[in-house]
């Protein structure tokens, strides 16, 4: 009896949460002519899955998709390369400045780039890096670094030292111990970091909006908003593109769901 009530409540809750996204999918399947009818309908009269073909073959959409992929992948690589040694060293060794370093990392996590956007823009403007991939990639990487360091550091700390000490006896240096012994054991943490960094960059909006004004350099988040402006209102294409952009991300996110809280709350919730 109690279980049935809980299931019922859960089902209603899931429906409420998903209902806006249901509107998104249904609008994505409407023909242009059905967007402006009164009173509005939830479902299409004529279903038009061809919207997906139209968007996927739109050269602009292909450009945004390419930019998003390049930026998200490059930023993920940078995050992994920078976070791994820092996480490993702070997990394994005590040294002067360790607390200061971790505090600095924690503070960067609390800042979203939008708070610094005027400074970011001045800096990239002065370096002539506005409208370059580098500016967007580095910014995305810097602001997901903290999450990556927390996740990896907690994982490295859970690996028994003895395993590395055995490697040290074999004459392995620290770096080789990390690469050959620790990293192969750290695959689950690495997957979490890779997926999280990729999604963070994939979803980033305000820095891209500010730095990437050249139409050929806009990522998806900024690009798709041009389907609906003061002059054109292709809401169906906006949501077709949105569905394409968020479905893979939702699936990836579901895979790492269990590990997110630890990384986002910096080990304070146990």
């Amino acid at each position: 009896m109690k279980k049935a009530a809980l299931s019922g409540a859960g089902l209603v809750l899931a429906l409420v949460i998903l209902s806006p996204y249901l509107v998104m999918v249904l609008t994505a399947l409407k023909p242009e002519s059905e967007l402006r009818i009164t009173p509005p309908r939830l479902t299409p009269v004529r279903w038009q899955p061809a919207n997906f073909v139209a968007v996927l073959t739109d050269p602009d959409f292909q450009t945004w998709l390419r930019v998003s992929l390049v930026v998200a992948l490059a930023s993920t690589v940078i995050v992994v390369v920078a976070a791994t040694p820092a996480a490993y060293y702070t997990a394994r060794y005590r040294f002067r400045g360790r607390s200061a370093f971790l505090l600095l990392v924690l503070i960067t996590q609390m800042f979203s780039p939008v708070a610094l956007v005027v400074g970011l823009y001045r800096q990239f403007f002065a370096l002539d890096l506005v409208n370059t991939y580098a500016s967007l990639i580095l910014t995305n990487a810097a602001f997901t670094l903290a999450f990556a360091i927390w996740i990896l550091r907690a994982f490295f700390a859970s690996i028994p030292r003895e395993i590395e000490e055995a490697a040290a006896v074999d004459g392995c240096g620290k770096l080789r111990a990390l690469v050959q012994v620790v990293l192969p054991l750290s695959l689950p943490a690495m997957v979490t970091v890779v997926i999280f960094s990729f999604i963070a960059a994939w979803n980033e909006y305000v820095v891209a909006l500010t730095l990437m004004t050249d139409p050929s350099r806009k990522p998806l988040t900024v690009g798709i908003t041009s389907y609906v402006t003061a002059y054109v209102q292709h809401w169906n294409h906006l949501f077709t593109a949105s569905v394409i952009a968020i479905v893979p991300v939702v699936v990836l996110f579901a895979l790492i769901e269990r590990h997110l809280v630890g990384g986002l709350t910096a080990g304070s919730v146990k």
Partner: protein
Amino acid sequence: MGRRGPRRWQALLWLGPSLTLIAAVVVYPAIALVSASLSRYSITGVYQGSVGTRNYARLLEQQALPAVVANTAVWVTAVVAVTILISLALAQLLNERFPGRRLVRWALIVPWAASLIVTAKLFAWIYDYYFGILNRALISLHVIAEPIDWLGDDATVMGAMIAVGIFVSLPFTTYVLLAGLQAIPGEVYEAARVDGASGWRRYRSVTLPLLRPALLVATVLNVIYVFNSFPIVWTLNDRNPGFAHDTMITYMYKIAFKSALRDVGLAGALGVVNVLVILLAVVVYLSTVTWREAEA
């Protein structure tokens, strides 16, 4: 742990990539922000010399400022408070075992994983005066007789934005509180049950106090996230002229980058104020969490 001298250089080597990234993309822009707040720029962004603290004085003279600060307070307080209340109930539900629990967890992933700009655009469409499904649904249910211009009416736009802010904040908050609930050992409840405490009493006197650390973390992090939030207010408020419904973040952005204004110095001054607000929240965060750096 032995040798000290070489270790310090070694640490620099291992932390080097991270330190470089933070220095180049967080610390340096923060310095650039402060320097922008003390300078004057042409509308095309050319530096025109130092002006001392004049931008700060000008900021205080802006007619829009009091409303913007009030909006920010309302936006942050309402979104965080309601999010926490709803998330407490959601976390309690997800802490039970029942058929379909996985479905709820997956549903909760969607607003978390979806880009905020996409969700914001989606709600702009749902709230649409003529073609939005919300007015249609409320009229069919006889909740309202006439359609409401949710995003165009001064009386409703802030409430409409707050609702979306809550919607996107629920997943993270629920997950944090759920982690907190799962950390409470079952024996605690057993003991309370033996003592004959009723459900609500048990919740108030056992669960809530033990959930305090998770609640504090969720509250402070949400305050920071919601204060920093950009896409929702930017998108849902984009039809309205002026700054009547802006927060300190979107107001700063408009001053800096909207073509007609382009006042980098003034935006820099507000940016510095925003950074100080966040730093204050970080200090609160650090004093509430047990800083577990010493472990490992």
